[in-house]
């Protein structure tokens, strides 16, 4: 069942993807500005069930440093050379586009291709993730996938491998060559692959979540602690932010809670876990959202600072991640060599309350 996306919905959709960013994935703000200038509104969004299963599809994304991305604004046709290379390699036009990463800025990327390509409501992550090999199609090792990437100075690299880790390494090298940030395009899959190996309906869910969040009037009813799928799991003042001794990318914000509880918000490029008085209350793949309670600004992991007051919300991801053990393994904190933060039973995590005494 198709969805007609109006220009007015863009703000709520951006907000929804920000929430699924889990403190990472970059801000959708710039892509939203680009899309608002487009004349091609409204945009029709098709569901995976409406399209012919054999229809080829691609997933565009900006990868690398989101900070650099904000300094090097993308053109609307930045993906054109990548798409052309992918179609030449595959020997066929790719008529459908879906989102590669449904958290942060990349959630809006497929809309750049409307109306020339059919935008399909399917996503390869359901939240922001730091690596390409965490895209659902690569996690499930869908055969025939290719990844095309900028290398800078009009260079393009196309990688095909049965090992997702190789793809991640090759593309990461290309991005370094490109100056730290670049466009990436995943292709070589079909609508049928999306039905079985991706998160269908994620765009619509992000839109609904964004609308609910906005309708809550900047969370005037947040005292209830639940907005849509979001659950408020902590609030307090950041008293310190310390870098991990073993992994310089890992930072732990210590938060003194409203009732004196000792909270830890552990982040890499995204928030990965929230611990209260030594108990893990939420952890990836669940999304964690840090919000400034005064401005309602959704804070990225890099934006936390000492003495800042924040609220922490958890947002469940699609069950797709939980259906197979190998999927879950790729997104829990243990994937990042962070011991003691995985939650064995996600269902109990969602049902769990704050037991601070």
């Amino acid at each position, binding site marked *: 069942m198709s969805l007609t996306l109006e220009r007015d919905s863009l703000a709520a959709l951006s907000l929804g993807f920000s929430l699924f960013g889990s403190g990472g994935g970059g801000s959708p703000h710039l892509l939203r500005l680009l899309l608002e200038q487009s004349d091609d509104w409204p945009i029709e969004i098709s569901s995976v069930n409406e399209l012919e299963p054999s229809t080829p599809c691609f997933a565009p994304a900006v990868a690398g440093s989101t900070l650099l991305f904000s300094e090097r604004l993308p053109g609307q046709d930045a993906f054109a050379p990548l798409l052309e290379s992918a179609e030449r390699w595959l020997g066929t036009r790719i008529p459908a586009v879906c989102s590669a990463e449904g958290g942060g800025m990349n959630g809006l990327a497929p809309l750049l291709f409307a109306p020339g390509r059919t935008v399909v409501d399917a996503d390869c992550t359901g939240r922001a993730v730091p690596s390409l090999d965490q895209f659902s199609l690569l996690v499930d090792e869908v055969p025939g996938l290719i990844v095309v990437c900028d290398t800078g100075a009009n260079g393009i690299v196309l990688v095909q491998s049965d090992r997702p880790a190789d793809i991640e390494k090759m593309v990461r090298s290309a991005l370094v060559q490109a100056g730290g940030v670049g466009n990436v395009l995943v292709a070589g899959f079909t609508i049928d692959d999306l039905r079985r190996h991706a998160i269908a309906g994620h765009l619509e869910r992000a839109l609904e979540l964004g609308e609910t969040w906005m309708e809550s009037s900047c969370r005037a009813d947040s005292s209830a602690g639940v907005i849509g799928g979001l659950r408020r799991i902590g609030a307090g003042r950041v008293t310190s932010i310390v870098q991990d001794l073993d992994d310089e990318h890992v930072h732990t914000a210590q938060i003194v809670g409203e009732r004196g509880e000792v909270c830890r918000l552990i982040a890499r490029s995204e928030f990965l876990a929230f611990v209260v008085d030594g108990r893990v209350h939420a952890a990836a793949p669940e999304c964690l959202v840090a919000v400034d309670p005064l401005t309602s600004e959704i804070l990225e992991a890099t934006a936390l600072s000492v003495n800042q007051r924040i609220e922490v919300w958890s947002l469940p991801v699609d069950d797709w991640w939980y259906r197979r053990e190998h999927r879950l393994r790729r997104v829990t904190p243990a994937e990042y060599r962070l011991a*003691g933060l995985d939650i064995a039973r996600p269902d109990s995590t969602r049902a769990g309350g704050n037991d601070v005494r």
Partner: protein
Amino acid sequence: MSAELSTETLFAHSDNGGLAYVAGPVNREWEGSEIVDDIGGLENRTHSDALLILTSTLPATPWQQDALLRTVRDRGFAGIACQNARVADDGAKRLAERFRITVLETDDPFKLAKACWHLLEARDALTLHYIRKVAHAIEYPAAELNDLLAHFSANIGHSIALIDEGGPLLESRESLPADLHREIDFTKWLSTAASGRYTAVSVRVDSPARQGLRLIIYGVGIGDRQLHALGTVAEVMMPAVAARIMIDEHATVSDSAEASQLIRDFLEPRSRHDPHIERRMHQRGWGTAGAHVAFHVALREPAATYSVHRAIRRQLETSGLPAPRTSTHEQGVLGWLTFAEAPSPAALQSHLTTLRQAFFSVREHLDVAMGVGSLKFGAAGLVDSINEATGASRMATGLSKSGYLVQVERYGVEELLLTWTTSDAFLPAAETLLAPLNAESGALVETLAEYLDNGSIVQATSQAMGLHRNTVSMRIQRAQQLLGIDLSSSESRLALHLACRAVLGRR
């Protein structure tokens, strides 16, 4: 709750594996202890108010530290000790406070576990543990009693002192608090005492050389079981201490006799420039080069000279004076300060002030007098200064109004002599001598004094007194008759002259 196992008793245990406080409640008592390799290895039961000892180190990441503390709390423990606990971050320390869990660091968890066992269950083992330490301490050579106490103290890990009812005589490690000293029962063979956070156990020292001594072991947080064990330890140490006192006394007496003989030899006029005596002086560390100020402390009542010597030496050692040399000499104690170069007048005054203070401190316990010689140079100068000091101390013994202290440097020879005339011994004699004159007329004493002041010349005396020369002559003749003394004798004149000064000075 038992106070046998607590932060205080553990810190007071000499072999606690290098225990250090990290976070949580500072004063904590535990019902027991448990040692495990890993928190996951604990049985899933509560350990009511026990101390958990982990053989593994504290996790490095803050959230793992939090999780560990949570598990410790959930299992009912009230404290945790492990290696590297000092790396606990601020949040973990805050959480320890929140959960009321004491976090301790130990370098050796097994030693800590053993210490817990000693305190909780194995009193005899604890005693044996201490006795072994005492045995080890005896293996080390001790030059004197102080050394022996230091070895004992270092080995058992507690402060030790030798005390009498007046206070501590020797202390090792920490000073004995005065409040604790007041609580000690000197009548019992073995007694315990407590004051504030300090507890102690003491035993009487049966030494024929010194009476009223006790050997005391004390410290902060020593629990009942430790005190019981340390009581036995004190009893075991006591004979060694008593024997050491005897040995030291004997050594002191022998040394004192030898030193005293050397001083006598040095002062002998015929021994001057004797290289053999010079060499013996040097061997004792009594260099004769440089500048010297001697002092002599004389006894005003019978006492063992070497005991006084020991008391004075102890007082001087703590006075800050530059390495005073001391020896028994002439019913007292001789000492001198040696300077490589002549000290400035201010510096010398400062040293002499310190010496006076030390003397007055000694006088609080002993009835002594002190004479201080003047600053002299070289071997001959040292002899002179010693002779001055010895003479001055003889005078000082009768000078109550000068505090039984005479400093040659302060007086000229004449003034010194006159000062002597005011001594407690001379005045009564002078008054007796002149009593016949006073019985007849006070004018006779005054005329006699003026006559002697004016060189025994009648004319000069009559002029000085405004009297007729015949009156003066008559009074002098009358005085001679009454006193029965021949004024043509210079010795008689000198004695009468001094007696007149003393008597008229008192008036």
